[in-house]
């Protein structure tokens, strides 16, 4: 069976979705979803092991060889991303049952898990596939289910946020479709590996440049890169807490994966960075994104919205690191993919605990929580420190690599601006800490208790992961370096 693992990885959550609809007992469905996600997680661990031992795994669907049929091609990059997504989703699902009981109406529990599974398998499908059009199909599975998941939020603003996300997301997906169409037109193939062999011969073609730009703009819409980010804050802020945690930790990572895959594997570094001024564009957008989004975050009064803006700025960090165009920068970007998933997963889960007890995530409602919910607030503090990049947390590791990368390229101003970004991050994290620990609750709501164990456990699992990979980053650094090598980054 071990040769079937690449497909089982995606198919198990996928087939569980309709099964859940048939089972239709909320608690049973929850367990079932959790098990499906955990199996995927275990498979992804085995896969990354296999890749390390025997190199790229190729799996032809329906036994049709690559350009004729669709193939799965698992290398370091896919295996790494699969590990992140399945790991985060399994941990988040631990808390899902408690959290959605508080936030959703009774008759929607089952449908929630069906949509969650569809979203998860859509993302896994995007990551695992080696076929350009297949990316589009699974992108739509993931997107359509995430629009509905967001719209499940209690606040009516969730509806408009979801519709805005839908319009932007579909526009982005259609741009991607145009890009894929142009690539196909020039080469006659849809397979990524095949494309990467045929595209370099065409690097002079203007049609190819247009294909590249449409594709990139489409993906950037999806990953909320700074000027194209306006759909994200409300979508994360008004979605049910579990959904915010899941999407914040994984969805944008998947979009970045698509970008990485096409820049490095399909178009090749030479085309992306030498023929096009991609490096300058990414650097500029990254820097502007970090500073603007962090500044906006400081002025937010809803903590969920604050962290949503913080997500935008962290994505900009990743883009900035990519724009360095050296292998240290690439390692930094890949590290930050993993680390940001850990931080944001933990922070949004902690917020779901606050939501569960307090019923709101307005900053003013945080006053006094340092005493009444010590464990939850401690998690937010550690997560926040990680976000700033204090040593002993994962945030430090990736920021450190970013700084080295910028120094290697002699980009002093960038180094300074990265540090400035960290200071801005410090300010908005401090605002939460200040409210929670140093103001007393005037309304005298003393009945607020610590969050239930089922919410604290997953939060602290992620927080401990934050600390563990911050103190002992050997595993992540080995993997990301191998990944960077396999992508052929320049030394």
């Amino acid at each position, binding site marked *: *069976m071990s040769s079937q693992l690449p497909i089982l990885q995606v198919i198990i959550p996928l087939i569980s979705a309709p099964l859940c609809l048939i089972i239709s007992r909320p608690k049973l469905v929850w367990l079932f979803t959790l098990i499906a996600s955990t199996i995927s997680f275990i498979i992804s661990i085995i896969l990354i092991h296999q890749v390390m031992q025997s190199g790229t795994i190729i799996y032809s*669907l329906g036994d049709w060889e690559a350009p*004729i049929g669709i193939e799965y091609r698992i290398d370091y990059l896919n295996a790494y991303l699969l590990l992140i997504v399945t790991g985060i989703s399994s941990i988040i699902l631990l808390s899902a049952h408690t959290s959605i009981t508080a936030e959703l109406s009774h008759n929607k529990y089952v*449908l929630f898990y069906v949509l969650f599974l569809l979203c998860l398998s859509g993302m896994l499908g995007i990551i695992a596939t080696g076929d350009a059009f297949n990316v589009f199909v699974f992108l739509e599975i993931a997107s359509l289910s995430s*629009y509905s998941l967001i719209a499940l939020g209690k606040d009516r603003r969730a509806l408009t946020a979801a519709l805005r996300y839908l319009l932007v997301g579909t526009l982005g997906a259609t741009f991607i479709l145009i890009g894929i169409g142009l690539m196909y037109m020039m080469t006659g193939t849809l397979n990524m590996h095949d494309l990467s062999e045929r595209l370099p011969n065409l690097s002079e073609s203007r049609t190819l440049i247009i294909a590249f730009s449409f594709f990139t703009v489409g993906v950037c819409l999806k990953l909320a890169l700074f000027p194209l980010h306006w759909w994200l804050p409300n979508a994360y802020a008004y979605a049910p807490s579990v959904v915010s945690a899941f999407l914040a930790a994984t969805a944008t990572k998947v979009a970045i994966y698509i970008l990485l895959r096409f820049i490095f594997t399909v178009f090749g570094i030479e085309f992306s960075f030498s023929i096009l001024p991609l490096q300058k564009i990414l650097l500029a957008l990254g820097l502007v994104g970090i500073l603007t989004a962090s500044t906006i975050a400081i002025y937010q009064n809803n903590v969920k919205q604050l962290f949503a803006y913080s997500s935008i700025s962290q994505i900009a960090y990743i883009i900035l690191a990519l724009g360095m165009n050296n292998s240290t920068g690439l390692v930094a970007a890949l590290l930050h993919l993993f680390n940001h998933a850990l931080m944001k997963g933990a922070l949004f889960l902690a917020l779901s605990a606050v939501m569960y007890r307090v019923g709101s995530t307005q900053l003013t409602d945080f006053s006094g929580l340092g005493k009444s919910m010590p464990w939850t607030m401690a998690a937010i503090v550690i997560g926040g420190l990680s976000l700033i990049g204090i040593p002993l947390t994962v945030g430090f590791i990736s920021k450190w690599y970013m700084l080295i990368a910028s120094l290697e390229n002699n980009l002093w101003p960038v180094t300074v601006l990265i540090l400035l970004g960290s200071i801005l991050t410090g300010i908005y994290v401090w605002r939460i800490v200040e409210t929670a620990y140093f103001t007393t609750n005037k309304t005298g709501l003393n009945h607020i208790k610590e969050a239930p164990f089922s919410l604290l456990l997953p939060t602290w699992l992620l927080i401990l992961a934050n600390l563990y990979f911050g103190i002992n980053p050997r595993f992540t650094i080995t993997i990301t370096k191998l990944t960077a090598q396999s992508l052929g980054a320049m030394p």
Partner: protein
Amino acid sequence: MLLNIYSLLSACFFVLMDAVDVAFTEAAVGVGVSTILLLSTLTITGSFEKNKRIKPILTFVIVIISGFLLIYGTLQMPPFGSSDAPIHQHVATYYIEESYTETGIPNIVTSVLANYRGYDTLGELFVIFAAGIGVITLLDVNTNIKNLSMFKNDLSKSLIQNHILRVISKMLIPFILLFALYVQFHGDFGPGGGFQGGVIFASAFILYTMLFGLKASQKLISQSWLEFFSALGVLLYTCIGMIPLFTGKSFLNYKVLAQDPLQGQHLGVLIVELGVGITVFSIILLIFIAFTKQVSIIGEGK
């Protein structure tokens, strides 16, 4: 609505371009399903736009820029209709030359859709499944049907009163069903297949609902059964795909389904198309019912 005329026109265009399968789908979807959905939404929301556009200049700039980019790109595209463009050389030639001997299916589009790129089609099925689940999550369809017992919206009232329409439509329904089945199972040879078959089959039920009201059609096939069927179709497809896994072959390899690989593929495609048909039928109907219930709630509110 101009939009459905537009859809019809583009369907005609697809026929001209020799894309019969696509034309068929666009005709069924663009002209049929999307029109019904749009009309029922407009019934609820009102069909007049209150104020004019908000930021025309900025938009115009964006649109013009992307338009120019595309034009810039076209100038080096291979000319339209030429047979030596790279697109027709690589994989396409293989499909045209080998697909009949390898799969035994004359309609190349079907053989590529269900066989070579069967995984895409599975994905497509899950997309529509996700949309269906999304719609029933959003529009709370579990509204008790008894609350709607008084329900007769304007549309069905006028239709019930019109005897000629009623008799003719009633006569039409069996033929639509028959045609749907023909399309469903004839996809191997001519244009058609599970998706189109499912849509047409659903349209027969939609017509029935329009004539006799929601309550009558819910008696015929209930909400929970539709949900069950939509899951069943998807499961059918995935399970067929998983059978080869146990014999050491890859996912969606139909050759193992029978002794003779060709027959196995025939069987595989047939079952897979059936799965597509079942899910598409039930999801389209679910979406339609969800929308109609909303319309009827508005109707009662008045």
